[in-house]
């Protein structure tokens, strides 16, 4: 079954949706959209470093993404103007990554794969890697779920309940770095945060509880992957952007449907 490249692509995409659904919900709730951008753009720099040092690419991306996520997290905790800081970091990470990668011989051809993903070329190893990452993220979020929700709602309330908001923030930061490393091959650095935000945002207007929103985000993400792959196959469009385009259409539909539903 896994011999078919399209099956592998679909399974890998669904694996990414499983990871990005609940995590994306937190990104939306905590207004961390730019945070996802900065972290995923840093992944390109990670790829360049990994290639230069002959390390596994996954390791390099995860390391640099984690470093970036921790930096951003520390800066925002110190009350830096988050918007500006993240804008600067996100785009400089991308620029430096692209510059660095041009020094690595023989990668230029793969550049569009890094930026937009190469889901149709997913190998069995990639697939295992995606699902392992999705499993780790799901386990982490399930384990910390109650504490994460409390912290997201109010750090003061979390404190008074004996929780440590810093620790919960770290859990999200780590989960984000793992997601970036895992999703780079599938949707590419430019569109990882789209995969985080758009399914969760679509689920928002249809949900009355945080759990429903997280689950719906997974389903919407998975549907986008499947439909996007079909589109890509039929019209010979790039797979990653097609997936996000479908997600964006679902978002538009959700915004139109929600007021009708509550009427």
């Amino acid at each position, binding site marked *: 079954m896994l011999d078919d490249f399209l099956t592998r692509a679909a399974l890998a995409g669904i694996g990414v949706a499983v990871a990005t659904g609940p995590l994306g919900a937190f990104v*939306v*709730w905590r*207004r961390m959209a730019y945070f996802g951008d900065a972290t995923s753009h840093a992944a390109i720099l990670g790829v360049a470093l990994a290639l230069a040092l002959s390390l596994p690419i996954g390791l390099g991306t995860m390391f640099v993404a984690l470093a970036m996520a921790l930096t951003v997290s520390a800066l925002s905790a110190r009350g830096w103007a988050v918007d500006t800081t993240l804008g600067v970091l996100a785009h400089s990470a991308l620029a430096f990554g692209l510059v660095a990668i041009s020094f690595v011989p023989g990668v230029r051809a793969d550049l569009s794969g890094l930026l937009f993903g190469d889901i149709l070329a997913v190998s069995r190893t990639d697939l295992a890697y995606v699902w392992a990452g999705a499993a780790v993220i799901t386990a982490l979020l399930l384990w910390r779920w*109650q*504490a994460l*929700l*409390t912290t*997201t*709602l*109010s*750090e*003061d*309330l*979390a*404190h*008074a*309940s004996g*929780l440590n908001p810093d620790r919960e923030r770290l859990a999200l930061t780590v989960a984000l770095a793992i997601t970036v490393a895992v999703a780079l091959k599938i949707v590419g650095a430019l569109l990882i945060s789209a995969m985080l935000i758009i399914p969760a945002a679509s689920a*928002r207007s249809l*949900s*009355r*509880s*945080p759990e*429903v*929103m997280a689950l719906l985000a997974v389903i919407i993400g998975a549907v986008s992957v499947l439909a996007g792959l079909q589109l890509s196959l039929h019209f010979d469009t790039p797979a990653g952007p097609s997936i996000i385009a479908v997600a964006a259409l679902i978002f538009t539909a959700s915004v139109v449907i929600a007021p009708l539903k509550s009427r």
Partner: protein
Amino acid sequence: MTLIAAQNITVRFGSTDILSGVSLAVQPAEIVTIVGPNGSGKSTLLRAILGIQPLAAGTLNRAPNLRIGYVPQRLHIDRPIPMTARRFLSLPQRCTDAQATAVLARCGVAGVENRQLADLSGGQLQRVLLARALLNEPDILILDEPTQGLDQPGEAAFYQLIADVRRDTGAAVLLVSHDLHVVMAASDRVICLNGHICCEGTPDVVRDAPEYRALFGFGTQGALALYRHDHDHSHGPSLTHVHGPNCGHDHGHSHHTETQKEPHKHA
């Protein structure tokens, strides 16, 4: 057994001491109210006691396994997170539906279980916050100006509820307020704060203390107490009233009657 004991705590923002050398202790089942003008460090003191605000100096001791029920000044509910009142009560410790129904009814917001937090009125939200704080069977309730957004009957009912909770459960209450006249009656002890502790004691003692008068003037409590003491002091009410212009409470009105009446009295 002392529930919470703070000794000489100092909190510093940059080079400014927001609190300096504040000591206070809360015993079981007592209602302690912290009053003070805007910017006097009331909320900061609560946050320090809760462990949210780091101390620059001093020590803070809590009884072992102390269960705290905290009601913040206001909970800023962001639109993006869908959350019903019922779900909120189960954060972070899950409660049963029966517990949720009972505690919501007790707090005067029966039936809001399925409403979204963001759709509740300010008063309803404060009551849901109190309900959540009570679920934990707290040894001490810590409330930071909990009646913001309540009208006057609602405010009186809220404080009555807190007094009832203390009577029924023996929980101590530490609360911050600047609604002086309402709060004073229900408190066992009042601490008047302005960066440091100006004075403390029973409501009567604090009300008559010159330090308190200097901060709040004369118009903030019952008229009888006011006129009884008018002639004891050389400074007039309008001179000693040091509230900032955006101080939101409503004693401007009693202030008014006071200045109107005063000429009659001295005439």
